[in-house]
């Protein structure tokens, strides 16, 4: 079979006409992919949703998600959410998407109404949505909620946005309340159609004729943009956001060729229009870095020259901002593979920006799983390709994300140390490692959910959990659920390991065993096993059953249970089942000082 390629019509800039016309054949093509993950998505509509569903399906497939949909009857979003129905109750949803818009606002302020009457209107409107969200909370899954677009007509003209009787003013108030709710309610994510409609232009966003004919609350040509936006949130929820931005240097990070033009000759800074375009691109990359995206450089250059470029006094990015820096004459796809290895992330977590179409082609053709947007030759357009494609769309700003780059930098120091020790054991001892290995507690549930959804390599079963499921497991006595946090003399690695075991009779079945690759080869997995066994004994378990389900990315842990001393009991194609009797188990961890629930309670 020919190598599967992503559909470029579904990436920025979207080819809306192709998407709308060819959606059925695009869908057939996308269904040919291997390794699709299935998700159940409920669309609760305040207007017609048929095309929204059809097109959203394509965007999700393009990112490896095969969605089963439940669509509410026309404008039955409120009834379905509050009162449910048999089909919905059995549907087992992973995601709710609530497709509402300004057409669903029940009552705008009248011109004679007082401030307090208007605030009552506002709270009545909010109450409808709050009751929807609270009613859906029983499903324990993510809720994606549109905020409100502006109305095309404003009978108050410019005053509409500043007078308390204006529709625009009212919508702004509602949007601000929605934002507040999304900060307070776990799992509630806002799909910002207020931004999207202004990005596209309100006059192209809403089509009156289509509203009267078919009750679509947005134009057909806006539907792919809407679906794209929803798909970015869903990608991020399921841990499919990218992690690393790989940048070319000459004519990407600065104007000109450092090797030819020298430090004084490159364009960066605020002196000229051209310099400013490169500076604003660097600023954007720096913003991404500050919120946890990892930066890497990949340039055909002499290393010394390339490094010198970032010593320019006007350069926003500094050499130290790059976690991996490849400046040599090797083919770029080889360097990119090296970068992924060095940072220890999957190759599909990278995106590559280069002004040179030949380099883009080589990387794209050699490693199709790297995202290589067709950015053109002009830096002025680079930001929009990164931004509009939502590669790095976050669903929240977790402290761990913001600190992630620090972990990688600490890792570099560890690597340097490692080379100066006689043995690896000696190196491990020198790290002064201590770990907290404890049962799930509420402050860590967000991080635990996030890690379960984005860990691909050190993941024995690749089972994904919603926040609700993790919450239930945390509260259930039928599970042994432990997390691990590792600290060493270079710093805190954060929460990096999770094991979930389901206790049934005298056996403990390991549903999930994951670890972040940033702590590979530190013996953390042995410390986790020790604690698992200890808790198993407390629960009267005599045997642990481990499962390895092969995925495209987890060959790293193919033999983990073997290393642990488990016995292979069953094989089905490439999946394996392992057992370990624990009556005579001896602790395996030698290098990490562990504090667990037991020691805390004593």
């Amino acid at each position, binding site marked *: 079979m020919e190598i599967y390629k992503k559909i470029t019509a579904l990436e920025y800039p979207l080819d809306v006409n192709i998407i*709308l*016309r*060819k959606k*059925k054949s695009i869908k057939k093509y996308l269904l040919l992919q291997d390794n699709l993950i299935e998700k159940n998505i409920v669309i609760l509509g305040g207007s017609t949703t*048929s*095309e929204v569903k059809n097109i959203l399906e394509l965007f999700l497939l393009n990112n490896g998600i095969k969605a089963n949909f439940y669509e509410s009857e026309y404008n039955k979003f409120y009834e379905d959410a509050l009162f449910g129905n048999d089909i919905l109750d059995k549907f087992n949803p992973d995601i709710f998407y609530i497709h509402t818009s300004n057409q669903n606002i029940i009552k705008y302020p009248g011109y004679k109404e007082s401030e307090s009457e208007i605030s009552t209107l506002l709270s009545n409107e909010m109450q409808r949505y709050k009751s929807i969200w609270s009613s859906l909370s029983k499903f324990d899954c993510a809720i994606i909620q549109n905020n409100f677009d502006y109305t095309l007509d404003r009978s108050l003209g410019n005053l509409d946005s500043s007078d308390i009787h204006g529709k625009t003013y009212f919508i702004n108030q509602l949007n601000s309340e929605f934002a507040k709710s999304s900060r307070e309610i776990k799992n509630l994510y806002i799909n910002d159609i207020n931004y999207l409609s202004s990005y596209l232009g309100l006059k192209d966003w809403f089509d009156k*004729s289509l509203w009267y*004919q*078919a009750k679509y609350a947005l134009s*057909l040509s806006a539907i792919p943009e809407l679906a794209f936006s929803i798909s970015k949130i869903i990608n991020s929820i399921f841990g499919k956001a990218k992690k690393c931005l790989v940048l070319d240097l000459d004519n990407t990070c600065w104007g000109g060729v450092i090797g030819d033009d020298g430090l004084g000759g490159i364009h960066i800074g605020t002196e000229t229009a051209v310099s400013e375009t490169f500076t604003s691109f660097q600023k954007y990359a720096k913003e991404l870095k500050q919120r946890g995206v990892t930066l890497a450089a990949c340039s055909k250059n002499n290393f010394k020259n390339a490094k010198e470029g970032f010593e320019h006094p006007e350069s926003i990015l500094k050499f130290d901002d790059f976690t991996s820096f490849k400046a040599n004459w090797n083919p770029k796809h080889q360097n990119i593979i090296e970068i992924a290895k060095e940072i220890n992330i999957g190759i599909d977590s990278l995106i590559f920006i280069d002004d040179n179409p030949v380099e883009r082609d080589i990387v794209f053709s050699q490693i199709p799983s790297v995202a290589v947007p067709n950015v053109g030759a002009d830096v002025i357009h680079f930001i929009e390709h990164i931004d509009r494609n939502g590669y790095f769309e976050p669903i929240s700003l977790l402290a761990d994300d913001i600190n992630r780059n620090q972990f990688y930098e600490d890792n570099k120091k560890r690597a340097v140390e490692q080379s100066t020790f006689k043995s690896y054991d000696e190196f491990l001892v020198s790290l002064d490692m201590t770990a907290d290995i404890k049962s799930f507690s509420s402050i860590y549930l967000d991080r635990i959910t996030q890690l379960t959804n984005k860990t691909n390599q050190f993941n024995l079963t690749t089972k994904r959990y919603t926040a609700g499921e993790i919450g239930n497991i945390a509260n259930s006595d039928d599970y042994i659920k432990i997390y691990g946090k590792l600290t060493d003399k270079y710093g805190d690695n954060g929460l990096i390991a999770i094991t979930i075991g389901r206790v049934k009779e005298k056996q403990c079945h390991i549903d999930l065993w994951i670890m972040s690759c940033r702590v590979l080869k530190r013996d953390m997995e042995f410390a986790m096993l020790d604690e698992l066994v200890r808790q198993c004994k407390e629960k009267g378990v005599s045997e642990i059953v481990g499962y390895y389900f092969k995925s495209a990315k987890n060959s790293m842990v193919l033999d983990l249970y073997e290393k642990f001393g488990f016995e292979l009991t069953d094989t089905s194609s490439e999946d394996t089942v392992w057992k370990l009797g624990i009556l005579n188990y001896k602790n395996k961890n030698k290098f990490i000082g562990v504090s667990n629930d037991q020691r805390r309670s004593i």
Partner: protein
Amino acid sequence: MTREEVFNGVQDIFRDIFDEDNLIINNTTSSDEIEDWDSLNHINLVSAIEKEFKIKFAFGELVTMKDVGTMIDIILIKTND
């Protein structure tokens, strides 16, 4: 534009929207004969025709386009205006 050119363009659109590469339509083809031709797909057809022929249908015209023949009549009038 000739009637034949318009006809071929419309046939291509039908093939895309209903995802049948070999679909053959004629002047009397109507929603009775194509199972998926419901009111929502009617909107999709009309919108694709508007884009393809760079025309805009008036609100009242949409309901009158019951079969392929009348569709083509209206497109011809609009493109040759």
